[in-house]
């Protein structure tokens, strides 16, 4: 039996090693060009602030996502599918677009302050640590909700029915079913969001209100851009990676499998308690729908007027972006599935670390390092799109891995032995067991990966020549030339395309699972 499992056993560690090399080699290349490593007090202040805001953002996003995910899991109402799909949208917004959308609601002249002033109340300011956390919750709460909802849907309906026939009330259901599920899912959710927020840059600086809101990524920008102090940049990026690794280790230690055992995969029918719990669910769902749709609506409204008068570059750039997204998404999905299946067989720190560290890496250092590594062999410009795809694969793989892992574990523990004893291995195991059982998370994950790759601006800015610009780059070029209206429209096209890609993958996965 062990011999039959060998190919997967070798491929997954090799993939993990490759991924680690992709993160660490550019860092080493950047560090190599500098000499010595010195971080000043301002750098450590940036490290502290980055960790504080990332922790707060992760905790709030996750804590608020739990009631929303539960309400979505146990209630059926018109528009439920739409709301779940909408959950994909904020996550896909480019940072600058998301910030402008939020400001239309929470800004100085936003809806909220207009309402407060009309009521004779003092206006509130969004700028500061609370604004940073608010923006991060807006961007990440939907992701957290979707990941936790996935957890709820993975509880076998047989266990739910058993609980119902035993007369479990809400508290017993929580203790025996929902609690263990959350213990398995939540550490991964907190980890992913913490690490995303750790490297957040434009959101933190724009809403942070001043230099006290300085993150590691900004310090890296300064080191690379104005000082060309590559050793300091590498040092800062190293600290960022170390924090990410510690977080990954902590999450790995506290995760415990829920161990529900196998089910027949019937549709889940959670009991939907009446009374105040029903009111609570309605409140949670309405609040989140309002919180997400108002800024999204603002993005839509800002983009509409300029649509008729878009510059000619937008169309080819959009085409390139879609190609990059499709390529990155399919490679990342395959790689993440390989890693998750291997990790489900036998938990390994190496796999977990390799599938988390790319998130904690600094985009600027990754790009700069790759540039230094490629330059002796080829003109970096000619490799702009392949490098972008490679980096997008590395950056989206962690999300996919976290989304796939819990269910891959469940499939392995529930059906692994049966499949082994029936000698269902290799392709047929993938075709008849794994793909059907994992269709839902695979679709969701592939959608996230495609949309993330659409919106990514990280390395393309460093590599792109005249004729390789992707849509996010065009948006940033337009805003840099006063053309805010055209930029808003191009951003709307970007968001619509990302959302369409996300929706197609996600809905495809759900249809295949049904």
């Amino acid at each position: 039996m062990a011999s039959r499992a060998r190919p997967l056993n070798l491929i997954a560690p090799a993939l993990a090693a490759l991924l680690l090399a992709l993160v660490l080699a550019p860092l080493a290349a950047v560090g190599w060009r500098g000499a010595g490593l010195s971080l000043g007090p301002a750098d450590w202040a940036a490290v502290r602030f980055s960790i504080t805001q990332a922790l707060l953002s992760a905790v709030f996003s996750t804590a608020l996502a739990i009631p929303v995910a539960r309400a979505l899991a146990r209630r059926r109402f018109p528009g439920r599918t739409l709301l779940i799909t909408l959950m994909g949208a904020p996550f896909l917004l480019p940072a600058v677009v998301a910030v402008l959308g939020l400001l239309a609601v929470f800004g100085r002249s936003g809806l909220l302050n207009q309402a407060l002033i009309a009521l004779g109340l003092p206006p509130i300011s969004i700028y500061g640590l609370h604004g940073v956390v608010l923006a991060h919750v807006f961007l990440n709460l939907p992701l957290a909700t979707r990941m936790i909802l996935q957890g709820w849907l993975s509880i076998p309906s047989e266990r739910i029915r058993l609980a119902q026939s035993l007369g479990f009330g809400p508290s017993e259901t929580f203790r025996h079913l929902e609690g263990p599920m959350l213990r398995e899912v939540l550490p991964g959710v907190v980890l992913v969001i913490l690490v995303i927020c750790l490297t957040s840059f434009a959101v933190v600086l724009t809403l942070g209100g001043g230099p006290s809101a300085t993150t590691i990524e900004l310090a890296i920008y300064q080191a690379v851009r104005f000082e060309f102090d590559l050793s300091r940049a590498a040092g800062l990026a190293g600290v960022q990676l170390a924090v990410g690794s510690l977080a990954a280790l902590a999450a790995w230690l506290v995760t415990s499998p829920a161990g529900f055992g196998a089910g027949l995969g019937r549709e889940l029918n959670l009991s939907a308690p009446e009374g105040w719990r029903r009111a609570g669910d309605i409140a949670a769902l309405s609040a989140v729908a309002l919180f997400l749709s108002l800024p999204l609506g603002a993005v839509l409204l800002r983009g509409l007027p300029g649509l008729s008068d878009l510059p000619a570059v937008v169309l080819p750039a959009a085409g390139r972006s879609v190609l990059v997204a499709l390529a990155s998404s399919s490679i990342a999905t395959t790689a993440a599935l390989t890693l998750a299946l291997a990790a489900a067989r036998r938990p390994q720190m190496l796999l977990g670390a390799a599938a988390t560290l790319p998130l904690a890496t600094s985009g600027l250092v990754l790009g700069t390092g790759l540039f230094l590594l490629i330059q002796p062999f080829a003109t970096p410009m000619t490799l702009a799109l392949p490098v972008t795809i490679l980096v997008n694969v590395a950056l989206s793989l962690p999300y996919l891995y976290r989304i796939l892992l819990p269910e891959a574990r469940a499939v392995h523990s529930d059906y692994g032995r049966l499949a082994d004893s029936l000698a269902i291995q290799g392709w047929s195991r993938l075709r008849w067991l794994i793909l059907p059982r994992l269709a839902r998370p695979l679709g969701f994950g592939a959608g996230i990966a495609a949309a993330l790759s659409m919106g990514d601006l990280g390395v393309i800015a460093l590599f792109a020549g005249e004729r390789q610009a992707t849509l996010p780059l065009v948006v940033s070029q337009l805003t840099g030339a006063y053309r805010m209206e055209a930029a808003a429209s191009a951003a709307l096209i970007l968001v619509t395309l990302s959302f369409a890609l996300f929706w197609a993958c996600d809905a495809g996965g759900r249809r295949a699972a049904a």
Partner: protein
Amino acid sequence: MQRHLLAAGLLTIATPALAETPVLTVLTYDSFTSEWGPGPAIEAAFEATCACDLRFVPAGDGAALLARVQLEGAASDADVVLGLDTSLTAAASATQLFAPHGKTASTNLPVDFADPNFLPFDWGWFAFVHDKTKLPEPPKSFEALAASDLKIVIQDPRSSTPGLGLLMWVKAAYGDRAPEIWQGLADNIVTVTPGWSEAYGLFLEGEADMVLSYTTSPAYHLIAESDDTKGAALFDEGHYMQIEVAGKLASSDQPDLADQFLDFMLTEAFQSVIPQTNWMYPAVTPASGLPEGFDAFRPAKSLLLAPAQAQAARDAALAEWQAALAR
């Protein structure tokens, strides 16, 4: 046989490469090369005279340009770097990657500017831009601005060139009093953005009364959008200048063509494109004059620290800025 085939193959690849016209590669910032920037018109005009292929390579924003030059080092394919400003030229010269141009340029800059490695191609004054309908009487100095309860958005000097320009502006105007000015401004600053476009976007969305930009920004709205509501506040202490320059790389394999481009840069064909694509003052005023709105906000006094001075003052000024604003 196989070897012959290979040789034949290589020859067919090599022949057109030999016959190809020479390529001049100009490294510049993104918005210069974009479809709506000066790049396309300048490319067409230069190629009409040079019998060469002019290629603009975008390298991110202005601040990213010097980092890119340093990253590529002597192995760079680029021949000319276009778009550095005077707060970066001292650092750029220190890399020894640039070659002296050996020219004396006659320009219409309001200050004297001569640098052995760099020639100016356009310039502007930093200024706080506001909406004239909402703020008919803008403050006339930093002190008046600090005393008011007006809200402003500025850019971070650690990630953007206008942000660095503002730092130098306050330093050049107030010297040792700069920390005091920054402390006074602290409660006026709504937020600090990573780059110019975020700040300008916030201002247009109504998040602030004024934004750090250029005296020529209102002209953009006037000409491109027929919108006469934007103004630039003129400050009594004078306005800091941004002079954008270009230089030839020492590693260039087309030094003659690079020289030819630098000469072309100060001719009518190049300069007349600048005002309405880059929205800056051309280094040499075109025969047709400046477009409408470019004379609307002309400061009486120009401020500029010499490149070496700006480089020397930067770290201390940055520390003062951080200390004053970190509440």
